């Protein structure tokens, strides 16, 4: 088999620089938004003492979970030895790193005291899932950098499978950790379920695969390289499998919630009476994010690049909606401190909490996404990440 040839993607056109410039403007506006929130305090956001994690957290977790899933493409190549996935390994690892950095930036900039990041790195409470996540994220970055190095350096190539397996396992632990941030919240009826850990793993595979397909296709298209549509179609079939799994996990979660009387309130809220959350659940997560893409990916008629890419976009919308419903819908539903009582207090502690995201929160999140794209564009500009001619690797 001839070796895969990689080269740099150096954009020269006016539109390339215009695009890059707009991305920088978006990333910068994210920073400005974070500064605005930091100097004024979080009252300028839609977040309250009832909904303490808002839109920035949805963006951050979307990106972080996507980072874990995106590396799956590299794993399929190195760990499971699928030759046709191998040329994609480098880009998969790069996008994964960029996604994680973008997500962490959003997460950190939303902290009440982002200036104390060093404390988060030096003081660890090992019973905290959050503390574990900090270690898991930093570890993931290091491992993927080494993984990339081994994939790119011919002399180290023989070890790339070993580190690939390690990264593969680490990914599972990492996303288990992310899901458990919510899964282990014993006090809240909307969380407190172990299924959130595997659900987040599957969600990461769904989001990560879709992001990778879009990123890869865009780079091949604008880098004027031939795109292997059959391979894209194949990854989309795999994505369809992940979608079915995600649908199954969601189904089991809601079945178990619907069974327990104590969870009927929160179930009714999400599935029927939750307004925006109910709409996002049925309309975006289930219809646009699951059913339609399944049809696109599995019905032969739609087996064309434009449809497949549209399917991936829908998957991302659905994944985002799912995280929004889990994170914000879960908080909007009140805690039950006095079961059997009608409760009244000046703090609205027992009614549905209102949450309307504000512009700074949106900019912070979008800025994180812009940062991801900038990172990827910059790195593939200086290092050979993208295969030059795909025909050489097909066999």
């Amino acid at each position: 088999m001839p070796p895969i040839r990689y080269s740099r993607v150096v954009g020269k056109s006016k539109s390339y620089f215009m695009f890059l410039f707009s991305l920088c403007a978006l990333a910068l506006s994210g920073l400005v938004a974070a500064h605005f929130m930091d100097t004024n305090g979080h009252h300028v956001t839609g977040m309250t003492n009832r909904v303490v994690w808002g839109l920035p957290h949805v963006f951050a977790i979307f990106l972080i979970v996507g980072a874990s899933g995106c590396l799956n493409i590299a794993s399929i190549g190195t760990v499971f030895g699928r030759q046709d996935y191998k040329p994609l390994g480098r880009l998969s690892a790069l996008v994964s790193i960029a996604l994680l950095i973008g997500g962490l930036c959003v997460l950190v900039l939303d902290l009440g005291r982002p200036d104390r990041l060093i404390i988060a790195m030096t003081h660890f409470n090992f019973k905290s899932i959050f503390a574990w996540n900090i270690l898991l994220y930093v570890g993931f970055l290091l491992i993927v950098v080494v993984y990339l190095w081994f994939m790119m350096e011919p002399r180290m190539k023989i070890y790339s499978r070993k580190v690939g397996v390690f990264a593969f396992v680490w990914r599972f632990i990492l996303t288990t950790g992310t899901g458990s941030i919510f899964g282990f919240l014993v006090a809240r009826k909307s969380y407190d379920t172990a299924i959130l850990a595997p659900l987040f793993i599957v969600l990461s595979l769904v989001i990560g695969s879709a992001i990778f397909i879009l990123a890869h296709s865009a780079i091949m298209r604008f880098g004027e390289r031939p795109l292997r549509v059959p391979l894209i179609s194949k990854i989309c079939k795999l994505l369809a499998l992940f979608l079915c799994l995600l649908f199954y996990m969601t189904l089991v979660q809601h079945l178990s919630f619907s069974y327990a009387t104590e969870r009927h309130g929160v179930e009714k809220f999400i599935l029927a009476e939750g307004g925006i959350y109910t709409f996002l659940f049925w309309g975006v997560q289930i219809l646009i994010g699951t059913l339609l893409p399944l049809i696109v990916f599995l019905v032969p008629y739609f087996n064309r690049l434009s449809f497949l890419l549209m399917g991936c976009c829908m998957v991302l919308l659905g994944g985002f909606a799912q995280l929004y419903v889990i994170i914000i819908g879960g908080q909007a539903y009140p805690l039950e401190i006095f079961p059997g009582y009608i409760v009244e207090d000046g703090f609205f502690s027992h009614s549905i909490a209102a949450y309307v995201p504000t512009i700074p929160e949106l900019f912070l999140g979008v800025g994180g996404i812009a940062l991801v794209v900038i990172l990827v564009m910059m790195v593939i500009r200086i290092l050979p990440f993208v295969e030059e001619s795909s025909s050489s690797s097909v066999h």
Partner: protein
Amino acid sequence: MMNDNSIDHYRRRFLKNAGVTAASAVGGVQLINFANAKSDDQAVADSVRWGMLVDTSKCATDCTACVDSCNEEHGLELFDRPESDVQWIRKVELQNKSTGHQVSLPMLCQHCENPPCVDVCPTGASFKRDDGVVLVNKHTCIGCRYCVMACPYLARSFVHENLENQRSWSPRGKGTVESCNFCVHRVDKGEQPACVVGCQSDGHKALLFGDLNDPDSEISNRANTISSRELRADLSLNTAVRYEGL
């Protein structure tokens, strides 16, 4: 001249405090200073566990004395944004759905023996003192709000605003999480928490504060003879705040 003023001031302040102590001793009001008050240089000990017993039958529906005293003591500024304003103690009105029985009670940090907020805090800023008081070390709080998510009692608040002129004994600041601290600065001096004093001055005496580990304390005796319960007992957190008549 300045110095004279200061001396006068300190003298006055001392006399005022002494006066209060004397008055309470004479009047037999329950503003007792604990006999076992520790000295300033002594660390808190795990032989003590501070707790509170709320007699809901004495808690009046429209009374907010505990909330007002707390806000005053800790200088809790409100910005007329109820959903993001801090609250360390709040009044809750309850009505039983099947029997119609009405109860009024204060909700505050329950100072759990096994606090979920301490479990989830990534930096260890949320911690429990040896004497059972659950606190936020604001020096190491990064403002992630995970503890607010984890608290079963909605007892924690995130400071959403810039603050100025805080009380010297109750430092608080934007971007960190806070909650009732059982008035540690008072308790360490052998005094009662502000809410307890406020409730007593209003004549309700619904709040009883003391050492749950001391079998002879008033709170232990009362808890021992009268039925009381902890909130969300299903979580097995063993709270230090208990409620009678609920």
